């Protein structure tokens, strides 16, 4: 954990607040909907305790996520999940789909509180996973981040909407930070540590792969129609190179092909040029597709 109020600590706090703001669900609207049929004085209590409950539930879930992420394999799975979350954030709202339905108005204080807390827990799973990964195991950072951002979201939801409306680049920055957190989680995976130490170049390949996959909805929009296949070809090429990095030690152990000089050259040729026919085949298929549509 970084030292308290050091640049690293403040930076991690900034990451958590930014992730909270861009991944926040419609908590404020849910609270408003649930509390709309209650008497005025109960409404105020519901808003306060609903917010308090939301912070408590999220802190509890994030703490659980921190412990779960310590289990080997989960850090890698969490990192991959963050790639999907970043893509979902950057996709236009119609394409991403509305995953949260409306909430029915409650008639009692306990019923309202229960609805708010359950809705928040369901809507905050992606958020909790992201901040659990960004906090590097620090519960203090999680609680501080949530204590800063959840009240902003609940009481200042209009301000948040106005901010992102004025500066939509905040969303892109949120996507980039999510991709960064995903990359950090993948390279921190304990199961991968020995392999990553032996293959340091793989870190950079993983970084480009994570960023190209997470930010694909953004950069693919800037490509011309002819360049669109790059959205598939670039990650596929990086996966090809990664696969060779994984297979290489096994080939060496097996001897056989790599034992001779010719064999070693052949393997290197396949590694650096073998993807070309596959990419050409893919591009040919892409070219054929419109013709098929016209005929059909």
């Amino acid at each position, binding site marked *: 954990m970084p030292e308290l109020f050091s640049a690293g600590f403040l930076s991690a706090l900034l990451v958590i607040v930014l992730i909270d703001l861009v991944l926040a669900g419609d908590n404020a*609207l849910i609270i408003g909907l649930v509390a709309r049929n209650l008497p005025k004085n109960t409404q105020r209590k519901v808003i306060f305790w609903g917010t308090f409950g939301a912070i408590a539930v999220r802190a509890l879930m994030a703490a659980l996520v921190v412990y779960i992420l310590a289990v080997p394999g989960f850090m890698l799975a969490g990192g991959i999940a963050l790639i999907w979350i970043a893509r979902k954030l950057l996709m236009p709202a119609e394409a991403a789909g509305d995953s949260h339905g409306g909430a029915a108005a409650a008639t009692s204080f306990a019923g309202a509180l229960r609805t708010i807390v359950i809705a928040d827990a369901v809507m905050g799973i992606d958020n909790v996973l992201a901040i659990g990964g960004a906090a590097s195991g620090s519960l203090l950072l999680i609680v501080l981040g949530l204590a800063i951002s959840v009240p902003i979201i609940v009481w200042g939801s209009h301000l948040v909407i106005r901010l992102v*409306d004025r500066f*939509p680049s905040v969303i892109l920055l949120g996507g980039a930070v999510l991709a960064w957190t995903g990359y950090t989680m993948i390279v921190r995976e304990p199961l991968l540590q020995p392999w990553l130490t032996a293959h340091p170049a793989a870190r950079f390949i993983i970084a*480009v792969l994570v960023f190209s996959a997470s930010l694909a909805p953004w950069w693919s929009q800037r490509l011309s129609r002819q360049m669109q296949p790059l959205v598939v070809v670039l990650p596929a090429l990086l996966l090809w190179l990664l696969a060779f990095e994984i297979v290489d030690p096994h080939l060496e152990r097996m001897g056989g092909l790599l034992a001779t000089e010719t064999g070693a050259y052949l393997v290197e040729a396949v590694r650096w040029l073998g993807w070309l026919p596959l990419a050409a085949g893919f591009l040919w298929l892409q070219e054929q597709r419109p013709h098929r549509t016209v005929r059909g």
Partner: protein
Amino acid sequence: MLLVHRSRRSADAIRGVSPGGELFVASVVVAMLLLALGDAVDSTWLGEAGLEFALFDFGGELSLLGLHQWSLLQLLLAGAAFAGGICAVKAGFTRLFRPLRPAARRALDKVPIEFRQKSF
């Protein structure tokens, strides 16, 4: 539904983003990728290739190898500086090359040149 998707512009942030904002985020992403490269580069290999001083060690913090210790705040500042630099260079080039651009066909500053055969 995400709260930010309640905003019309940010629900389609990719198309609604300003060129300046996009350049800033792109610069931050480049800084993040450089950081990952600094993490991946083997310093002994660079030393053997004789590139350590020439390319990657401008002195402490600014070197590529020192980048992996950078936090998000530093990356944001680096991205802002990088984007500002690109904007300044672009503005300079625009000023430099504007006089070379031909004026529109019917613009006031267009010099009317006509080639007529004189009849004697």
